[in-house]
């Protein structure tokens, strides 16, 4: 079952020719709209920092999404943040998509190590405070490379997980179905019901989530147990993809598309919610006549903004 949060005032004209199922508006859609009105005027002193370096390229649309929800989003070059900024002035942090430093060595490796080395202490404080950190695509790769995800307590392993070359061995740009599997820990999906299916596009060559081979089973069990799995690739009907291409587009273990840290305030995901924020970004919005107002990606940003309000 796939549902779209529809524009409350969608005119009847637009509904012509759309199957009943596709139009069934449920609680989620309406509650999402109510919330929309609620957050329409959040205090503008809430600030989110979007970090960029050479090769970052999804910062503008990420900023657009956050600002549409009424928070102030500042795109800041990492060198400038290190030189004259203070991370703790911000209530939230996003590491957006792109190819940081050309993704040489390994996707996200250079920026990951740079952040760990130069911003590590500040960022640890930021995270320990419970402030939200979102890594999208390359940002997810960076958070993994920097060691903030999956963040299991383990004194031995240097790196617990990796995002490696897709099993198709090529870049893949496609819309995927995501199963929301978080039972309530993750801050970024607080308004998304458990097992709800979302449609969001991916665009990456290195997105296959793998765990340290010797501890694969142990880590996976702990991720599940800790409620750290947030999104899994699935079939359109919500059944897990079980590795089946192209539903699982990269061969990730357990169809993992996004994980959070044990506290739930750091989320990394390969799909791009900022590319599924508005209804007109959907790959098949023309089915509806007029596009719906928003896409599923908004739900993640909305949850993000909601948890910002707590600081």
């Amino acid at each position, binding site marked *: 079952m796939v549902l779209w949060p529809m524009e409350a005032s969608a005119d009847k004209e637009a509904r012509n020719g759309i199957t009943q199922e596709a139009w069934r508006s449920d609680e989620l859609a309406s509650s999402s709209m109510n919330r929309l009105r609620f957050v329409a005027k959040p205090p503008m002193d809430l600030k989110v920092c979007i970090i960029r370096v050479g090769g970052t390229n999804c910062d503008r649309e990420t900023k657009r999404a956050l600002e549409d929800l009424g928070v102030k989003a500042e795109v800041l070059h990492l060198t400038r943040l290190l030189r004259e900024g203070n991370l703790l002035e911000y209530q939230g942090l996003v590491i957006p998509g792109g190819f940081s430093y050309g993704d040489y060595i390994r996707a996200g490796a250079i920026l990951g190590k740079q952040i760990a080395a130069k911003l590590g202490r500040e960022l640890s404080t930021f995270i320990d405070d419970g402030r939200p950190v979102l890594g999208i695509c390359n940002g997810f790769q960076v958070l993994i490379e920097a060691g903030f995800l999956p963040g299991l307590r383990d004194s031995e392993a240097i790196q617990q997980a990796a995002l490696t070359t897709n099993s198709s061995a090529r870049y*893949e740009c496609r819309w995927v179905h995501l199963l929301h599997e978080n039972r309530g820990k993750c801050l970024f999906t607080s308004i998304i019901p458990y097992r709800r299916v979302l449609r969001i596009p991916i665009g990456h060559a290195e997105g296959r989530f793998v765990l340290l081979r010797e501890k694969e089973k142990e880590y996976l069990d702990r991720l599940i147990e800790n409620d750290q799995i947030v999104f899994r690739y699935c079939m359109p009907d919500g059944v897990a993809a079980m590795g089946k291409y192209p539903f699982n587009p990269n061969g990730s273990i357990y169809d993992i598309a996004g994980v959070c840290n044990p506290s739930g305030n750091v989320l990394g995901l390969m799909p791009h919610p900022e590319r599924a924020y508005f209804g007109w970004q959907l790959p098949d919005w023309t089915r509806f006549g007029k596009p719906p107002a928003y896409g599923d990606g908004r739900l993640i940003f909305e949850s993000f903004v909601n948890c910002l309000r707590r600081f």
Partner: protein
Amino acid sequence: MEGSLSWKVLAKRISERFEVYRFNLREASDRQLLELSEGLGIGLNLEEMKACQRYFEARGIDPTDVELQTIGQTWSEHCFHKTFKGTILSPKGCILARNLFKTYIRRVTDELAKPWCVSVFEDNAGIVEFEGDYGVAIKVETHNHPSAIEPFGGAATGIGGVIRDILGVWAEPIANTDVLCFGPLDYPPERLPQGIKHPRYIYRGVVAGIGSYGNNMGIPTVNGAIYFDDSYVGNVVVYCGCVGILPISKYIRATRAGDVAILVGGRTGRDGIHGVTFASADLSEKSEEVSRPAVQIPNPIEEEKLARAILQVRDRGLASAITDLGGGGLSCAIGEMAHRSRLGTIVWLDRVPLKYQGMVPWEIWVSESQERMLLSARPENVEAILEIFRDEEVEATPIGEFSDKGILRVFYWDEEVASLDVEFLFNPPEARRIAKWSRPRFTEPEFPEPLDLTGFLLKLLASPNIASKEAVIRTYDHEVKGCTVLKPLEGFHSGPNDAAVLKPLEGSWKGLVLSSGMNPKYGFIDPFWMAASAVDEAVRNNVAVGGRRIALLDNFTWGNPERPDRMGSLLRAVQGCYWAAKALGTPFISGKDSLYNESPLGPVAPTLLITAIGIIPDIRSAVSVSLKNPGNPVYLLGRTYDELGGSHYYGLMGLKGGKVPRLRIAQARGNMEVVTKAIDAGFVRACHDLSEGGLGVSAAEVVLSSDYGLELSLEALASHKVPARNDFILFSESNSRFLLEIQRNHQADFEKLARGSPHMRIGEVIKEPRLVIRGLKGNLIVDTSSEELREAWHSYLED
């Protein structure tokens, strides 16, 4: 270098400290002149060398290698477009045309005089108005020769170069396009001549190169095509396009005397030496060895940073002009910037940051190393500009200044190594070309109508030029920037949309519509109708999704223009462009030609790419290819003619035919107007143009894009003047036709609106995912499931 070394006696080194030579041109014989041209690798012919001889004789000095290199670069076909600006003669010596560019291409624009054209053919890219102060810049380039030698680097730097063209008019790049032509992927390797790489190797490299550059820079690749033909085995064709958006008030080109020339971006190296002279000659088996250094090395991340810095400079209005460093490197960029403002310059070559030591002055001067641009700025703004670049971690170096003397002066370690009149540099001797074209004698084949048309339809769907290109398209990011409204692949069935729609501005629903048209198969029969068909195809693709107010770009890839038959077909194609674009009211705003696409296997197929950029007032009314609702009527708009020459149907049977699709102006305009009006009125639920493979393939593509099916009947066409055979009606590629799904309750309104244009209700959308077509006599001629259609369509490019 090849040839005799007698020219070396002309050389005299001018300094102990560095390697610059003067050449005693005054006493050189004709033979020595030609050998000198070849020895320096500057590709000038005897007439041009003699013009240099006269110029330096008059000045009473000997030219340096830096000066001769400058002239060679500036006068190359690639930079100056000698053929398009030259005189075309018949074999008997009668003048057929002077300046093809002005007589045919530019004339369309001048005669149409559209007020929304902001800058045409003047700058690095064409600019048209978009919304409010915002304009749209667009450019399409070729990078054929480099891609034949080094596919990945050649294609990637092609994209890199065209992106800089967009930055070079102060625009922010928002989308890329790519149209690629390869030899058949299953070409027998034993038939490849020495020095030619297998099409599969070239295909993989080119596709990866384009994806890598666009993806890394974060610019979506939203429109394109891939074409296969034997003639591309020796001459791969790589068209790279870029679209950008800019506030027109920030479009500044006002270099003044005293302004500082700032070189920004990557460092200069030995990659890309003599790229333009390489691109202005035929490929040979030695190209690999001789011209490898002509291919540049791509670094998209450098360009990403460069773009950020340039846009900040633009927004703060700190610079007085900008241009990119492409063909000819610094020598052309500085010369052109000076020439544009009627100025001269002084350049200190030793200030140019190098990748490594040991480069001689002329190499620095002509190197085409990537990711570099040139700014001019008032001296008081220089420091602010340098600071912006420092913040983005990009190098920026003042290397010279502009003067009002009209002379291009180049220094190296305080010694003058070049001094040229800008006026002389930009007035090369006029090229003369001989054109001859005779209509090839092809006859119409005769064969009975095949019984199994379903089989033919499936074969057509699986044929290389019609089959799905999804395997390639998915490796290009077409979603980054989050502005792609209508994608190259529609929905979850990945159907082929006719055009891409973008929403570039946050505060406006207005959209950009991007499409293209190209029919090399018609070119061997008649280049005039090939050109007219390409224009029609680009425009109708645009109209099919809701585009209007369309501007065009022309890109020619032809063989050696010094051969009369190649020139003859080029002339006919240019005439076709003028006629069709004028008639459809669509001005040309930019273009480029790539000639000398010849290899030991012969010339490239005459390949004209027309790119169309339109606007749509509200992206929410864009129309896609997929069927929306069972029960809706389906119309064919436009008349089908018996003109299957060069069609894919004939091609499948190894036939050519002589009658290629023509363009009927009144009908074309009428049909397109009907589509636009019907879309605006909200009658149209789905639309697809009819092109390769005609009605049969178009209907199949619509079905395989959808959850539903189509039931059509050709009986309704019997009363209209159509060919008397089912196969001809199904597979004729007549121009200006559309397949439309009309909202059921608006059927009468649509018919009223379409009165005056040939429109036929040929069936309706059905719930079952099938394609069912009945013939002229009501018998079943096509019956297949959408699963089968998809399977056939996806069968060619699997990996």
